[in-house]
């Protein structure tokens, strides 16, 4: 399935012709992708596109661990993204890892082009009916990963979206906003990008 959509937010004027691409690896509920797209526009001020760049991530599978190596996927995504796309945000259902760790929820190229989030472990403690909470988790954590590509690091403010959550409960507790520090640091980075 290939979905291409263009979205424009009402409240933000977009500073550039660049866009942020949301790239689902598998089929995801369109509502969820819409929510991510809306939040990306609201917080980062870029237009968004939803288009699947990469649907087969088998090349990154480690059969011994039965997990996918996220760094390899990021490299591939960054290479595939068209020139107009400033950042690629991939969402996948497969479980991700980096070699030294047992698993990761997601990975991002800090200050780079690509990031990925796995929804594999975000279902924890949820009944299948609790789709709203699940969606909120996915949206928050995709924004978090995308924040890294804009050079943001983890934040000590518990309510900030850039806070690194040790438990899924902490994810539910944190807000869908950047704290005032991260907002300023993001504005710096956006200004820098606009100038280059």
């Amino acid at each position: 399935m290939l979905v291409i959509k263009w979205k424009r937010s009402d409240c933000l004027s977009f500073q550039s012709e660049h866009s942020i691409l949301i790239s689902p690896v598998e089929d995801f509920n369109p509502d969820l992708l819409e929510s991510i797209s809306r939040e990306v526009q609201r917080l980062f001020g870029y237009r968004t596109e939803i288009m699947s760049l990469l649907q087969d991530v088998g090349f990154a599978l480690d059969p011994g661990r039965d997990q996918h190596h996220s760094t390899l996927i990021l490299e591939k995504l960054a290479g595939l993204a068209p020139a107009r796309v400033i950042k690629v945000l991939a969402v996948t259902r497969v479980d991700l890892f980096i070699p030294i760790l047992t698993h990761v929820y997601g990975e991002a190229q800090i200050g780079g082009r690509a990031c990925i989030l796995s929804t594999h472990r975000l279902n924890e403690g949820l009944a299948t009916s609790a789709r709203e909470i699940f969606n909120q988790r996915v949206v928050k954590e995709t924004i978090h990963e995308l924040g890294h590509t804009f050079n943001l690091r983890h934040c000590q403010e518990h309510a900030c979206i850039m806070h690194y959550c040790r438990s899924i409960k902490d994810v539910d507790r944190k807000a869908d906003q950047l704290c005032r520090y991260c907002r300023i640091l993001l504005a710096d980075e956006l200004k820098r990008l606009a100038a280059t």
Partner: protein
Amino acid sequence: MEAHMSNIKILIVDDEQIMRESLAGWLERDGNLVATAASGEEALKKLSKSRFDILLVDIKMEGMSGLDVLRKVKESDPDVAIVMITAYGSIATAIEAMKNGAVDYLLKPFDPNALGVLIDKITEHQAQAREILYHREQYKDRARFESMIGQSKSMQKIFDLIQDIAPTGSTVLISGETGTGKGLAAKAIHTNSPRCNGPFVAINCGAIPKHLMESELFGHQKGAFTDAKETRKGRLELAHGGTLFLDEIGEISMRMQIDLLQVLEDRIFYRVGGTQPIEAYFRVIAATNQNLEGSVKAGSFREDLYYRLNVISFRMPPLRERKEDIPLLTEHFVRRFSQETNKPIDKISREALDEMMLYEWPGNVRELENAIERAVVVGKGRIIQPQDLPIFRPEHVTSPQSNTLKEVEKAHIVQILNENQWNIAKSSKFLDIDRSTLYSKIKRYQIKKPA
């Protein structure tokens, strides 16, 4: 997670590139400064050039093993925390490493949370140690206060400048090497200003442990965090109506830079956990021994804050540029220390003074002060002799080819390090510079520890 998001320096030592890189990438997300080494040998080379808070060392490596690295590092820098990384088969070795001073070990692949918890534990422990040191230094600082002394042209210019700028209330940025008296200049500006009856509150931004900084500066509301049992006023509030002196401003975190900029722009701030705005009615004087413009270019210091601070700026001259002041300063210090120690030393020999005039004083007035203090303590007669001075080395006199400032400074540092068995804490105390300054000098001069 609290403590561990403020530029912890971590060195990863692993001969597998993929392990090094994936771990480095992961730790960088927390804002840590991460370096990697592909072998024990490379790690030791990196450690001789810069300081790290935490080492993550793979036990099994080609060449030098993780245990060898552990032993070597523990000999030279016992403060650094070392965590061993081990595969399932070599737990016994990991336990041996713990006996040899490793903090802990991680079994690979490890759970991201286990890594996070461990790093938190280490940084909290290190922060506590720094806090104790900080309070001790605070106590010492209070005991010492001097006035500015100098008849040289460069100092006369500084005195004139201070007279001119003191009444204005503008923000001032003072640059200059360690020990040149930036704090004294700030105090002089304060005492010559209309705010002289208000408080002069000095903060050494490089010395305050990062996790204490926010509450130290802004104060906190009761209940703002676990230890906040009482509402407490911060230094900014205490400076009301007076002058706030921010020493080593180049050392403050990005967060704190954002906060300070807001204070300077809006003239209000909030206590940690507080919602009531507090008016900031004070003058700000900042000082640095770094090249702040360079830090701005490198992205570690905010340009907007730099311009806010750099309204009026001047540089304190190093002592080697005003050697004509050495006799006057010496006389002053001799008088003071002979009084303090109750020893009847009242003169300095011609030869000793000649030595002092030849010396380049990399640690500036503070180094001179320490040299005289030592001379007064160890001196046997009424007159200070060259051999009473810590700077007196016969080889100085016989090796005129190494007379550039850099070479003299390097030689001095090497000597002090050797005399103190490369104990960084002791050596930096002796040189009267911060540990971080000493580390950066060791790096800059590529000074190597003798094998």
